[in-house]
């Protein structure tokens, strides 16, 4: 594609956040000190064991849970799927059905497709239909419920506390997929399991965290080792785990200030896009949303052409349009909301995003869209 016309501006934090400086530092240190297998009886192994324990303790503190409730996986996807499959396995005698929202991440949907599932819809803003959720979790044979904390595609925060209350009433454990929220936005209590992904808060890729609260029945869906502790089979990437734990602590320390700063930039994008681009739909809840993420759809615009044009200007964004998906299907989230799926752009910001980058994005966007529409004869 050649060299971008402008300075590169990465705006796809919902896919992956650039490595936090604290993570980079911790990663280098842990590569030197944490390469050994932590389960052996020599000094290098003991150092690795200490690093592993310190990382688990840091996760427990950051997430306000007990250390033995934390398990580590090789990705957020793997953690979410372990929650769903292990939660279903643990409640096999009570039922076989998973209740989930229509806007879950595909990681959860793929796990749901392994068995019986009931899907609960959302409204035009992408918010869970709580009455339907209440009815669904009270059905016979429901073993587990799974809800995303906030939409990874449109940013709408889900009513987790109310959904958890209905689950408690029905005696159904709730898994919350908090990949987009951890480090950015508080997740209310009441859940039985919570999964997250270090890649989404500025840690390295390849680290997923799963919390299973005490008293929740969870049975590994995978072959287990002789330690009987939840977790990925095989050796963990300990340096990455250490970096993930260190960066989560750093990210949480600056989370409130960053949320205020990024939320103001998202408000600017929401307002300017609606004002400067004709025939555009800015989707998701304008107020009750993640601080860093905004999605809009432009009529008559090919999403793939739009992403390439933005890339040529130096902007990295993603899209829920079907022409940009490997499946050639539109985003299931946009479909569930009933909003336009073509010409879709998701912009998600991070601690490196500047006000100038956002302004430059807003200055080039209307012309790019006008050009694509002209080519299509609109």
């Amino acid at each position, binding site marked *: 594609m050649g060299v971008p016309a402008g300075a590169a501006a990465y705006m796809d934090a919902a896919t992956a956040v650039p490595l936090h400086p604290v993570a980079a530092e911790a990663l280098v240190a842990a590569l030197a000190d944490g390469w050994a297998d932590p389960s052996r009886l020599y000094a290098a192994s003991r150092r690795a064991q200490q690093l592993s324990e310190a990382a688990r303790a840091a996760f427990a503190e950051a997430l306000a849970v007990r250390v033995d409730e934390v398990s580590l996986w090789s990705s957020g996807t793997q953690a979410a799927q372990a929650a769903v499959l292990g939660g279903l396995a643990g409640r096999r005698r009570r039922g076989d059905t998973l209740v989930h929202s229509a806007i879950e991440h595909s990681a959860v949907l793929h796990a749901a497709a392994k068995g019986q599932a009931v899907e609960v819809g959302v409204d035009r803003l992408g918010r869970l239909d709580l009455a339907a959720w209440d009815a669904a979790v009270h059905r016979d044979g429901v073993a587990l419920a799974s809800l995303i904390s906030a939409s990874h595609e449109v940013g709408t925060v889900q009513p987790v506390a109310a959904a958890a209350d209905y689950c408690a009433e029905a005696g159904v454990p709730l898994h919350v997929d908090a990949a987009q929220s951890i480090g950015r936005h508080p997740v209310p209590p009441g859940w039985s399991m919570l999964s997250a992904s270090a890649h989404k808060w500025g840690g390295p890729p390849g680290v997923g965290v799963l919390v299973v609260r005490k008293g929740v029945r969870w049975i590994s869906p995978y072959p287990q080792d002789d330690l009987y502790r939840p977790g990925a089979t095989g050796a963990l990437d300990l340096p990455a785990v250490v970096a993930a734990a260190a960066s989560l602590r750093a990210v949480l320390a600056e989370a409130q200030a960053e949320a205020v700063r990024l939320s103001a930039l998202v408000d600017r994008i929401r307002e300017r896009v609606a004002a400067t681009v004709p025939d555009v*739909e800015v989707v998701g809840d304008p107020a009750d949303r993640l601080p860093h993420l905004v999605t809009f759809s432009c009529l008559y615009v090919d999403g793939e052409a739009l992403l390439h044009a933005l890339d040529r200007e130096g902007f990295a964004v993603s899209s829920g349009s079907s022409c940009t998906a490997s499946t050639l299907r539109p985003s299931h989230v946009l479909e569930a909301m009933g909003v336009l799926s073509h010409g879709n752009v998701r912009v998600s910001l991070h601690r490196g995003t500047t006000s100038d980058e956002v302004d430059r994005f807003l200055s080039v966007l209307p012309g790019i869209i006008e050009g694509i529409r002209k080519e299509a004869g609109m």
Partner: protein
Amino acid sequence: MITLDCRGQMCPLPVIALAKQIRHVGIGEKIRVLADDPAAANDIPAWCRMKEQEYLGSPEKHAFDVRKIS
């Protein structure tokens, strides 16, 4: 009723064809869009909502009816 055969076309081409055609029909007239792109079932009703036209539903697979009301 006018029928637009957009089968085989990918998004957003069926919606573009609909938007171009609707300029040439009178208020109250109907257009049927034939489209097999998986986004059409979502995007044609969404277009109707955004452009204040009436979506009449899908009488059969890959067919979508729209009435011009504005």
